[in-house]
C-alpha cells in the first residue's frame, strides 16, 4: 500500500485538487463550530479542527432526502405513481474525518445493508464514499473512543489514515479505495520508512482522555437493565430534544413524510414528494400510534430507549460492541448535561 508525505501546504492543494475527481467534504468553521461541508470555492477547510459539531453522517445519510416524487394531478397519466428521483452516486471523499466517525459507518452498515434488505440510497452512497481520516493527536476531554472499539488512530472505518506530524502530513492508504484516492492527490512524495515508524510511534502514545466500562454490558440481563432504578432520575432533567441523536454519528433513525405543493403558477395542480428525514427516539411522535396509544409515551421511556438501544439492544442483537463510537458529541451537545459516560457506568455496573 502506498504512503505519502505532504507538507501542510501541499496537503491543502492536494485536497483541493481532489475535487476534480471526487465530490469532497471537509471540516470548515461556521460560527463557533466546525461542520463537514461540501468543499466548494467559498469554503475554507480546517484540518486542525478536532471535532465537528455534527457528525459527518450526513455525507452518506442526509438529514432530509427525497426518496420518490409523484404527480397528484389526476389528469396526468402517471398520477399517484412513485417515480425515482435522480441521485448522484459519483465518487465522494470525506477528508479530515476522525477515526471514530469513520468507524460509525461500519456500525451503521448492518442497519441499512444486511442480508434481508438493502437501503439503496444509504448503501450506494456509502459505496461511493472514500474516508480519508485524520488521526487524533490530541483527543478532546470528552472522547472515549478506545473504550468502545475504536481509537484515536483506528483504521477500521477508513480508506486512508493521515498522521499529523507537526510540519507535515503522512497519509497511508489502507485499501484499494484509499489507493485510488491517494493516487488522485498530487504534490506529495512517497513516505520514507522512517516517516511511517515515527507516525506509528506517535500514534501508539495517544489515548482518549475518558474511559468507560463495557465489559459487563453483554452479560447483563436485558430486562434487568430495562427495569433498573436509575432511569427515572437520569431522565428527570432531559428536555426530550433531539440534539444528542442528531449530533450522534451512529443514530440512524428516520421518518418518512409525504409532502405536496402547488406546481409553479398553478394553484390546484399538486405535486408531491416522499422524503425521509432524521428522526429521534426522543420525540413522543416517534412511536405514537394513530389510536393515541404510545408505547413510549413517557420521557423516561424515551431516554431509556436511546441508551438501551446503543448499549444493550445493539450489543445483544448483533453480538458485537456498542452502538457508540465514543466521539463525545452527545455529551457536548446535550443542553442539560446528560452524560453517556455516566450511563455506561450505570448500565455496565448495574446489579439488581
Amino acid at each position, binding site marked *: 500500500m502506498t504512503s505519502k508525505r505532504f507538507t501542510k501546504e501541499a496537503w491543502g492543494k492536494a485536497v483541493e485538487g481532489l475535487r476534480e475527481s471526487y465530490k469532497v467534504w471537509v471540516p470548515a468553521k*461556521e*460560527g*463557533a*463550530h466546525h461542520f463537514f461541508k461540501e468543499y466548494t470555492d467559498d469554503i475554507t477547510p480546517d484540518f486542525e479542527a*478536532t471535532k465537528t*459539531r*455534527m457528525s459527518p453522517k450526513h455525507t452518506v445519510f442526509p*438529514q*432530509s432526502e427525497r426518496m420518490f416524487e409523484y404527480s397528484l394531478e389526476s389528469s396526468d397519466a402517471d398520477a399517484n405513481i412513485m417515480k425515482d428521483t435522480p441521485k448522484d452516486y459519483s465518487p465522494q471523499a470525506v477528508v479530515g474525518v476522525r477515526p471514530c466517525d469513520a468507524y460509525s459507518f461500519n456500525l451503521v452498515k448492518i442497519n441499512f445493508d444486511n442480508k434481508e434488505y438493502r437501503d439503496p440510497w444509504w448503501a450506494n452512497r456509502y459505496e461511493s464514499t472514500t474516508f480519508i481520516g485524520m488521526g487524533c493527536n*490530541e483527543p*478532546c*476531554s*470528552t472522547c472515549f473512543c478506545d473504550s468502545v472499539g475504536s481509537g484515536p488512530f483506528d483504521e477500521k472505518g477508513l480508506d486512508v489514515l493521515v498522521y499529523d506530524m507537526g510540519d507535515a502530513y503522512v497519509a497511508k492508504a489502507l485499501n484499494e479505495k484509499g489507493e485510488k484516492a491517494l493516487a488522485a492527490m498530487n504534490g506529495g512524495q512517497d513516505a520514507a520508512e522512517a516517516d511511517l515508524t515515527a507516525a506509528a510511534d506517535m500514534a501508539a502514545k495517544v489515548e482518549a482522555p475518558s474511559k468507560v466500562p463495557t465489559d459487563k454490558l453483554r452479560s447483563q440481563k436485558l430486562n434487568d437493565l430495562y427495569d433498573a432504578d436509575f432511569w427515572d*432520575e437520569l431522565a*428527570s*432533567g432531559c*428536555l*426530550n*430534544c*433531539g*440534539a444528542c*441523536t*442528531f*449530533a450522534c454519528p451512529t443514530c440512524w433513525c428516520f*421518518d418518512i*413524510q409525504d*409532502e405536496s405543493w402547488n406546481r409553479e403558477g398553478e394553484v390546484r395542480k399538486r405535486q408531491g414528494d416522499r*422524503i425521509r*428525514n432524521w428522526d*429521534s427516539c426522543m*420525540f*413522543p*411522535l416517534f412511536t405514537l400510534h394513530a389510536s393515541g396509544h404510545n408505547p413510549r409515551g413517557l420521557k423516561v421511556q424515551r431516554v431509556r430507549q436511546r441508551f438501551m438501544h446503543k448499549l444493550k439492544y445493539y450489543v445483544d442483537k448483533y453480538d458485537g460492541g456498542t452502538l457508540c463510537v465514543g466521539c463525545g458529541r452527545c*455529551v*457536548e*451537545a446535550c*443542553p*442539560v*448535561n*446528560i*452524560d453517556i*459516560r*455516566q450511563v455506561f457506568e450505570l448500565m455496565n455496573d448495574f446489579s439488581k
Partner: protein
Amino acid sequence: MKQYTDTIKATAKRLLEDGTVDCFIGFRKGTMPMINHPVVITDAAKADTLYWDGNCGNNLALYLTGRKADEKIGIVATGCVSRNINLLIAEGQVTREQLYIVGAPCKGMIERRSVEAAVGHREILSVNEEGEKLIVEGKGFKEELNRADHLQRNCVTCRHHNPVEHNDILGSEVSEPAEAPVFTDLEEAAAKSDEDRWNFFQQTFESCIRCYACRNACPMCYCPTCFVDEAKPQWVGKSSDKVDTMTFHFLRAFHLAGRCTDCGACERVCPVDIPVRYLTNKLNRDAQEFYDYSAGLVAGERPLLDQYKLTDIEDFIK
C-alpha cells in the same frame, strides 16, 4: 455561590424530609465546564448533590408542567423562572399551593459561547467563578475574564434579577438596573429594508437542524401536541427545507407572544447557536410598547393575549 449551594442543599433536605415537598427541582454540577444538570430529586439523601453557580441557565419552571395535581414541588427560582411560575399558575398548569419556591437573586448566567470565543475556542477544562472574575483553564492556558463581560445576552438586558414570587430567598436581593434595556439586534433590524430583514432571517435560521431543543427547553411550550406534530392538518413539513424551518420558528415564537420572560433557555440550548430570541424579543418589546406588558411580573395576571382593553391599538385595522 457556595452560600447559595449550601442553602439549597439544606433547604431541599429539610423540605423533603419533613414532607413539605415530594420532589425538589434544582441543578447538579455538570460533568463539563459551564453546563449544569437540571434534576428532579425525590430522596432527601440526594439533596447533597445539588449545586448552584452561574451556569444554571436552563429554566427550571420547565419541569413543573405535566406533573400530578397533588404533587408538592420544591424549586429554585431566579427572577425569570419565578415569572414563568406566575405564568404557569395563571395558565392553570400548576397551583401556588403545590409549590415551595426557593428564590435565587441572580446576577446573570454565564454565556458559554462567549467564554469559548474569548479563549479562541481552545478546549476549556474548567471555569471557576471567583467574585466578579472567571478563571478559565485549559490544556496549557489559564485566563482570567470579567464575569460581567460574558453573560447570556438575555441577562444583559434583564431588568428583573430578583424572584418576584418566593417562599424563601437565598441571600439578599441584588440591585436591578432602572434604565430601559437596549436590544441592539432589534434596533439593527428596524433600520433594515424588508428584503434585508428577510435575508437575515433566512440565513440566521437556515442552519436549524429541527431538534426542537428551543421548544423543549421552554417552560411555556407545554402543549400536549405541538403544531409541528399535528398531522390532520399538517401545518408544517418536517424536512430541513427552508420554508418549513422558517414556518416552525415563526409560529413557535408567536405562540410565546406575551408569555415569554426572556429567560434565554431557548437560545442557550441551541446546538447550532441560532439566536432564536431574535423573534421572541421582538414580540416582548412590542408587548411592552403596545400594552405596557411584561410577562409574569404580577402573580395572578392573565397572559397578554388572554386579556384586552377597550382602548387597545387598532390603527392597523381598516
